[in-house]
Structure formats: C-alpha cells, structure tokens
C-alpha cells in the first residue's frame, strides 16, 4: 500500500512539475515573441502584405533577398563584383523580427526593378504578386506601396529658400510622386521657393529621395504607410467630389442617448434645497 501511495504522489508531483514548467516556459516565450515583433518602423519589400499578417506569413527563407542581391544590374561595372542588395535579412542587433527582409533607404534604397525579382520567388504569400500587378496581370512595380516619403520642412533647405531639387530628380516617378510647388520668396523679394511636395497616390516608398537628400540627416524620409498616413474618417467628406461621397456611403451616424434623470425635473432639483 505504502509504495503505491508513494508512486501516486510521485506521479502527481512530476505531472504538476511538467505542467508548471511548461506554463512558465510558455509565458516567457509568449512575452519574448510579442516583444520582438513590436517594431513598427520597418520598410518591407514590394508587395508585402499588411505588417501584422506579414509577420505571420514570412517563413524567413531569404529568397527575396537573394533575388534582390543577384539581379544583373547589381554588379559593379568597374570591379565586376556584386554590390550590397537592397533587401537585408534581419539579424540579431537589427531590432527587427529576426530573419525577415527589410530595407533601409539611406543604406540601399529600392531601385524598383521592372521585373520585380523579389516578389514572385516568395513561397509563402508574404509578398503578394497581385498587389504589384496591373489589370493585364503583368508585374508593375509602380503599384508597390512600401512606404510613403514625408518631408520635414524645417530641415529641408528648399523651404529655407535655397535651390535644391535632389529628391525631385532622384524620384523614379519623376514629376509624379514629388512635384515642385513654387512660391514667391518675400524675404528677398526676387527669388522663388521651390518646394518638394509628395503625392501619396503615386509614391511607392522606394526611398531613392531619402538616399539622395543632401542634408546631414535626410529631410525627406520614407515611413511605413500606417505611420505616415492619417485617416480623415467618416466625419469629413469632400462634398464636391462624388468619389469621396461614395467613401462614406456605408457610414453610420453615431447616436448617443442621454438618460434623463428620473428624480424629478431640473427645476425641482434646484429648488430642493440640497445644494450644499
């Protein structure tokens, strides 16, 4: 009797221990995993699906980065060696989810290859070929939305009145994604401000403008779409624009209900003498 009792006690103890340690491990592991995926400031390859889904889908195989590295145009004409590609695979210390592809425009921007070698090789669906294809089903890199260029006007020397159109000239969608807006320079009275304005319906977020920017730290830079863009919401509509009106077609009015006091009328409350 005593041994079977001991055995049972031992069995319960080891089971409890296993379950407890597994729970401990699970909590630590979940906490760690949740932390490492938390970096929102990251630019993904063309065609990348929504970041939250991308983190699930990417199988970290590196085929996109290898395709990027090995395109023919990446070979240095003088040395014959291939240069660093745009896409990097996040390693320890990059503070991105390890093993996922990303790029840093100031290091190597995306040169927007017309054949988009990085997208069709993706086996998992983390890079969506349809999102970078036109109606005819052909690849169209201009449809990619890797991010959105944003100008910080206080550090942009064009806003100071100094003539610079480096970003405008570097843009692969010249005159479309960035246009120059001209204003009279009242300070000198005889010069023009030539201001770069980014258009988010065209900008692909390739980062060539950021790489070309002449200031010490670029005054134009690419941010992930979710961070760079605001949302006007249903409360505002361009009443003169039919397309914008369609946007709020399904909007529901917010109705708030205020419950009336059941303890008599307001006047009664004021006259009740309970004010102090």
């Amino acid at each position, binding site marked *: 009797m005593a041994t079977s009792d001991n055995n049972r006690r031992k069995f319960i103890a080891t089971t409890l221990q296993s379950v407890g340690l597994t729970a401990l491990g699970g909590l630590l592991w979940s906490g760690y995993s949740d932390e490492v995926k938390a970096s929102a400031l990251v630019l993904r390859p063309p065609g990348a699906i929504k970041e939250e889904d991308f983190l699930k889908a990417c199988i970290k195989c590196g*085929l996109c980065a290898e395709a990027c590295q090995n395109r023919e145009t990446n070979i240095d004409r003088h040395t014959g060696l291939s240069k660093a590609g745009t896409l990097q695979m996040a390693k320890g210390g990059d503070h991105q989810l390890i093993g996922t592809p990303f790029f840093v425009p100031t290091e190597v921007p995306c040169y927007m290859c017309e054949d988009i070698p990085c997208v069709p090789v993706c086996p998992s669906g983390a890079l969506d070929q349809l999102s970078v294809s036109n109606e005819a089903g052909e690849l169209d890199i201009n449809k990619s939305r890797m991010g959105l260029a944003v100008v910080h006007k206080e550090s942009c020397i064009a806003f100071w009145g100094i003539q610079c159109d480096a970003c405008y000239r570097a843009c692969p969608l010249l005159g479309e994604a960035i246009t120059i807006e001209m204003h009279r320079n009242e300070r000198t009275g005889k010069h023009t401000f030539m201001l770069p304005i980014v258009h988010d319906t065209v900008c692909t977020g390739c980062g060539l403008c950021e790489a070309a920017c002449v200031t010490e730290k670029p005054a134009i830079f690419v941010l992930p779409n979710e961070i760079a863009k605001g949302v006007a919401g249903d409360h505002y509509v361009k009443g003169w624009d039919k397309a914008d009106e369609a946007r709020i077609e399904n909007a529901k009015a917010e109705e708030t209900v205020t419950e009336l006091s059941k303890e008599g009328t307001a006047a009664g409350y004021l006259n009740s003498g309970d004010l102090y």
Partner: protein
Amino acid sequence: MKNIKYLLLRRVTQIGILLLYFGANAYGWSILSGTFGSSLLFGSVPLADPYTTLQVLATGFVLGSDVLLGAAIITLFYFVVGGRAFCSWICPINMVTDLANWLRRKLQLDKEQTTHRFLKRKARYWIMVLGLIVSAVVGIAAFEVLSPITIMQRGIIFGFGAGVSVVIAIFLFDLFGVKNGWCGHLCPLGASYSLIGKASLIRVDHDHEACTNCMKCKVVCPESHVLHMVNKESIMVTDGECTNCGRCIDVCGDDALKFSIRNYLKKEQ
C-alpha cells in the same frame, strides 16, 4: 580512417550544403537557395521545413502552396531516410554541439555523473507543442524567433550580426551545462523529426554475437538510450530519436553495428 568514415561524410554533407546555400546568395547559384525554413532545389523544386510550416499555419495564415508542397516533400524524404538524419547530416548546430560534446569528453566534465531533475529528454516534445501554441497566441512563428539553427544558417549566408551570441550560448550550454542539452533535450525541430522518422527505413543494426561490450558506442552516442540493445540482443535501433549519425558504427571495433534497411515484411524479432 575507418573510425571517422561517417563523421567525415557528415561534415562534408553539412558544409557542402551550407556552401550551396551560401553560393545561392553570394554568387547566384541555383542548386539550393533559400534557407531551411523554405528552399528551392535546382530553382524549381520547393522544400520546406515541416515544423516551421506548422508554426506559420498555427498563426492562422493560409500559406502558399509552394511551402505546403515543400513541407510534404521534406516530410516524405525524412520519413524514408530517418527523421533525425536532418539533425546529424544537415543541421549546422550539430557541428557546434558535437564540438561541445567532444570537449566535454576531453575535459572529462562528465566524470561526476549528474542527473538533471528538471531537464528530461522528453522536454523537447513539450517545447514542440508549446511552440505551436505560442505561435497561435502571439501570431508569429514562435520557434523561428529564437531558433539557433536558422540563425546560424542565415548568419553564414547573410552575415551573423549579434546572432552569433545564440550559437555561442548553445555551445556553452552543451559544454558546461547539460550534456547533449540542446539537441537531446530542448530542440523542438529535432523532436519533430523524431516523430517524422519513427518508422523510417534506414536504421542502425546491432549484431549481438560480434559485440564485445566495450561500450564505446554508448559513450559517443548523443542519444545513448537508443542503443539499449547493445550486447543484449541483435535488433535494429528503431527509436525515432536516433539521428542516424553513424558515430557508433565508426567507433565500433567489432563490426557489431552497421547501417541496414528496415524490413517490414520480415517479422521483427
């Protein structure tokens, strides 16, 4: 030469495969590109790691058919050649843990046999299941964020960065911590391959008649419990945890161990 035949073959395979992966990125070779998570063989045949695939599926993402087909191909392959052949013939961490294990023996760190109350060899199966649960809860492939296997492989292909610390940590853990600690106790990938290869065809066969009970095989075996039949009975090593590394065959001076093909038609004695 005889007693390092399989060791040498394994190192050539391991390094050769890493070289092919490295060349795919550095020189544009298309023999074997990608990483273990998902690869392309000859630029067309998809390959994918089954456990990695399961983790992604656990996050709720509907994977592309290339990965699913690749995982099926790999599962089938290791179902035949022995699941954990991946561990000893392909996985780069195997070189790290083998080195740690070799140093352990040279430094005689195992003279005082210690039992690890908290860490049992079964732990890896718990971790394997846990990895899928965490993947589902957090929404990312959970083992992939800390897997030293792919961190080391990507390190070799794309550059290590701070990831090298994970590899050093595994080395130190196996050397000064638990004997065969990573591969034999913790690694959920190895656990998944143990299950895949449970019924595999290529196995180590033991000949009890020839055995002189020198126990060299058990000393060198990273999963020595799978050799329970040594000097007891002439049967095959059928435990899925055997990595088919062939070290036991190398060190055996009596020709009592050899690779053989499991015969399901013949009744197992």
